[in-house]
């Protein structure tokens, strides 16, 4: 007997939040300058109490470097993991993820195009402009890519076939858009090729700009709205016909979920670049831990995405210290083998 209870969801979410706090403290601690956990806690406590810890050199490291990065990594991971869970349910395909489907790459194309135009108009390359404009451009890129993938894949009456074609179309479009991205970026008169290169791999080392405020808002709002569709998605992932019979407006739910998942993907990609496979890895690990009911998957994957990305990013900035890797390298190294494993298992099922 396992009616899903709110208590179970709350328990799972709270335990994961505890894990997130531990990992965050660890990540604040580790780096070229070690900030002891006690000091971090004291400084954050002081800050929250309204005291100005200026003058303490550790405070400078903590507040201007580590903490923003920890929060940014968490936000990006939460968003990409949630988007992955949504795409997997919607397409009834365990391999779907914003990166594999080309949505992340499309969002980065949107971001680059916006930056080019903003550059011509005299704004800075990655900053500047209205703070909403860059996330909006990324979202537009994400939605257009998803639509294109859908159109290229075409419709097939056979579910597994159409689902595979969708993935193929996504992979092809992603590689095409990657080339476009490189072309656009190298044609820019811009000295920071290394920065661009890192951003294209998915990178969290860039300092945050004010657009992080609307991005954060969009991610939380989008993830909450997606949560409202979690039960409908449970039924849709069994089959469209069954969902219709049980009273789900399949088309409406589908459109909303596409838009919301693209929205949160676009929002974070505009900041971090397309980080690979987070949306593939995190939902799978969460399903193993908590089962496949979306009502428990969505809240847990949101927090777990944050935990996972923080771990990956901490690894990325320490493994070759003092040099830093883009976090996308670490996630791709974990994600690619999982993708292959799932591909094999899926064939085994059929």
């Amino acid at each position, binding site marked *: 007997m396992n009616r899903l209870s709110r208590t179970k969801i709350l328990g799972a979410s709270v335990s994961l939040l505890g894990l997130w706090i531990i990992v965050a403290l660890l990540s604040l601690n580790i780096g070229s300058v070690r900030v002891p956990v006690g000091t971090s806690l004291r400084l954050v406590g002081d800050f929250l109490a309204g005291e100005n810890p200026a003058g303490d050199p550790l405070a400078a490291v903590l507040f201007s470097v580590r903490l923003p990065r920890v929060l940014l990594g968490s936000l990006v991971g939460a968003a990409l993991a949630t988007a992955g869970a949504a795409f997997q349910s919607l397409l009834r395909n365990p391999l779907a993820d914003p990166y594999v489907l080309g949505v992340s790459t499309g969002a980065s194309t949107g971001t680059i195009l916006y930056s080019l135009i903003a550059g011509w108009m005299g704004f800075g390359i990655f900053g500047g402009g209205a703070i909403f404009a860059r996330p909006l451009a990324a979202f537009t890129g994400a939605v257009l890519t998803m639509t294109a993938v859908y159109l290229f894949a075409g419709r097939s009456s056979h579910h597994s076939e159409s689902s595979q074609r969708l993935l193929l179309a996504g992979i092809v479009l992603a590689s095409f858009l990657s080339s476009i991205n490189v072309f656009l970026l190298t044609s820019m008169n811009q000295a920071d090729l290394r920065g661009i290169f890192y951003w294209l791999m998915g990178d969290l080392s860039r300092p945050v700009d004010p657009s992080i405020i609307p991005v954060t808002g969009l991610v939380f709002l989008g993830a909450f709205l997606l949560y409202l569709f979690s039960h409908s998605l449970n039924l849709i992932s069994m089959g469209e016909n069954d969902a*219709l019979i049980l009273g789900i407006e399949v088309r409406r739910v589908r459109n909303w979920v596409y838009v919301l998942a693209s929205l949160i993907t676009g929002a974070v990609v505009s900041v971090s670049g397309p980080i690979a496979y987070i949306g593939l890895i995190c939902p799978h690990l969460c399903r193993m831990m908590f089962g496949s009911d979306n009502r428990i998957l969505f809240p847990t994957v949101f927090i777990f995405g944050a935990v996972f990305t923080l771990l990956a990013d901490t690894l990325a900035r320490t493994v070759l210290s003092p040099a830093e890797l883009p976090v996308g390298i670490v996630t791709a190294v974990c994600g690619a083998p999982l993708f292959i494993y799932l591909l094999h298992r899926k064939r085994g099922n059929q």
Partner: protein
Amino acid sequence: MSGEPSMLEARHVCFSYNRPIVRDVSFSLMPGTITGIIGPNGSGKTTILRLLDGIIAPLSGEVVLRGNTPLSSLKRKEIARHIAMVPQNGGSYFYQTVFQFAIQGRSPHLSLMGFESMRDEEIAREVLEMTQLSHYLDARVSELSGGEKQRLLLARALAQQTEILLLDEFTANLDINYQVELMRLVRRITREKRLATLVVSHEINILGTFCDRVILMSQGVIRHQGSVQEVMTKEHLKQLFGLDFTVRPLPGGRMEVLPTIQ
């Protein structure tokens, strides 16, 4: 027909998909009654079920709930509180437990956040009791036999607590003893809960034995409808299938129907 109001009524319903599939179809489903639709492949039977459940909309004509509410004016969730359907080919639900599957029938009654209450859980247990699946609550759906899976689909439909039940090829691919067992169950529940039940099936003899009314269709048109004895005659069946049949009246207005094959 008595003066009792119909639960669900098709009024001059037409539907095409490249070619006409359903043409000017009118009939009513009455409470406590099993209606059967018989017809050769491609006669539009499944399309009619989809029209009756509002999954597709008629090109002309209308489907009316309880005599005055056009189905087209209702949201899907509202329709699912009145009409339950057992689909012909269910989706992929092998990883779920029997209980999880059955409680999904409560979906149209859930609030925005989509959580089942204690009451929903109780209803799920009741319908599993009714369909004799209580001892399988925690079993995986994939572990059930063909007949048990059909009972589970019926349980999910019953959990919707509707007054109308549509069954699409409910007994297909089952041994005759399971077919009879399932139809006895459907008949008992139809009588007890005063459901308006519609059964689409290829099993002519099963329909002749269990239905109160039958509709004979071919090429999207209703050829005959009425009581089993009026409709299931040698002549009508020969028209429909081009075969000779032996028909023998049974007590209670039923018919035994067998094709005569040389």
